């Protein structure tokens, strides 16, 4: 069963076409790598999927609900980490996560346990009492990821989750995302190609708003662990168009 269904999605900003006739689907429990050069339309697509931006045309369904017709039903299924982690600098990590969890519909009784769970998963337990503006970039990013995990949404949409992390933290986040496969459906956008090879089964490459590749890594001619050739494929596809 496909968790996310996108058919003929187009998003226009006045004159500019950001996403052009995009069709793809993601099966339940799958991790999809979302690739493309800057400005290819990755972030726009993610914003449409999460219901933040309305599509100009086309259909987007998440867990069987149409994003436009039933936005709340869709939003209940999605945990979203935008490009810039959406944090309130003056709040403490605990206060911030409590706020988001409440709005995600986590019951009062489960709040503390849910906070513990996501902080454990993202390694932010020891900064829970700190004010967000005093945290390092890496920790802010992790708090952003923790926020997306609250309430265990069926779908996770992560826009460059490893941005700003050091190599150790990157490896941790990668492991975390890998661990999510199966129970969660994940769309992961990134610029770091080896990361895709390590975490994703399927890859979607966008270029100038159009889909140029959408297949499993194996089918794209990638042997496990050979980042080099994914890079070559990526360069070939995004240069040709």
């Amino acid at each position: 069963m496909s968790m996310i269904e996108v058919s003929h999605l187009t998003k226009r900003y006045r004159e500019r076409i950001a996403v052009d006739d995009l069709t793809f689907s993601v099966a339940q429990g799958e991790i999809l790598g979302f690739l493309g050069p800057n400005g290819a339309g990755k972030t726009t697509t993610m914003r449409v999927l999460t219901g933040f931006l309305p599509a100009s045309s086309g259909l987007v369904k998440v867990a069987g609900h149409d994003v436009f017709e039933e936005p709340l039903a869709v939003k209940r299924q999605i945990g979203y980490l935008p490009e810039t982690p959406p944090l309130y600098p003056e709040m403490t990590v605990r206060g911030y996560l409590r706020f988001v969890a409440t709005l995600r519909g986590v019951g009062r009784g489960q709040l503390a346990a849910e906070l513990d769970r996501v902080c454990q998963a993202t390694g932010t337990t020891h900064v829970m009492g700190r004010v967000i503006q005093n945290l390092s970039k890496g920790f802010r990013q992790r708090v952003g990821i923790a926020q997306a995990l609250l309430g265990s949404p069926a779908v996770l949409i992560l826009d460059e989750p490893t941005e700003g992390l050091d190599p150790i933290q990157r490896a941790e986040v990668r492991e975390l995302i890998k661990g999510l496969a199966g129970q969660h459906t994940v769309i992961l956008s990134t610029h770091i190609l080896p990361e895709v090879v390590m975490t994703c089964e399927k890859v979607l490459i966008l270029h100038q708003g159009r889909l140029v590749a959408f297949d499993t890594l194996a089918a794209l001619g990638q042997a496990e662990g050979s980042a080099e050739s994914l890079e070559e494929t990526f360069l070939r596809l995004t240069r040709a168009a």
Partner: protein
Amino acid sequence: MRNALAIAKKELTLYFTTPWAYVVFTAMLGISSFFFVALLQDFRQAHLLARAYGWERLGPDYGAFKNLTDGVVVNLWNTIAVITLFVAPFLTMRLFAEERRNRTLELLLTLPVRPREIVLGKFLGGVGICSAALGVTIIYPITLALFGASESGRALEWSTVLLGYAGLLLWGATCIAIGMFVSALTESQMLAAILTFAVALVWWLLQGVVVQAEEPWRSIGTHLAFSAELSPLLRGVLDLKSVVFFLSVIFFALVLTDRAVEAQRWT
């Protein structure tokens, strides 16, 4: 409603963790104390004059000074209403503008929350902080009740004082609603504050603005002016028309804010 309350609570937390709340409280208390003392002096002056010449010879201007309620409290409420006009834009400017600048509006709009719950929550948070700022001014009538005296009965007429106070809170909520709408239109907090102030001030002074105008406009302006609608309430006259007027302004501001938040997604 749970969502709206959660958002209201978050707004209040942010007001109290940043210096804003304290700056506003200090400004409110400082400026109103200054006027309170000045009003007490005027009151004393009027009574000294009255003792020397009698109330009849002082003319109608001094009539209000016969008792503390009309002479001090009602005048003070009018002054505080004007202070609120200056203070409210600083409380509302961040409501939506900051969320946009911080990119947290994207979070709120992708959580399972209706835009109108966000708007209501922010409005309640703003009303909360504004009422708290106005709340500190209740010490003036309390001071008068404790230390003041009257020739007939109690020093203050509490029904008048409290109705005026309720009018003041309603006026505060109106300023917050207008400010929130303006804040939803821009990313710049400074611009939001200045625009809110401009809108509220012109609306407040509308009566004076239309004084020279042709007839239909003059009546319309006179009836729509904030100052004209608020003054009976502050004097302790329960004018239902004024209450409905302010509630409608609040309602329309909330609806417009909701639309403004929604509209941004389409540009």
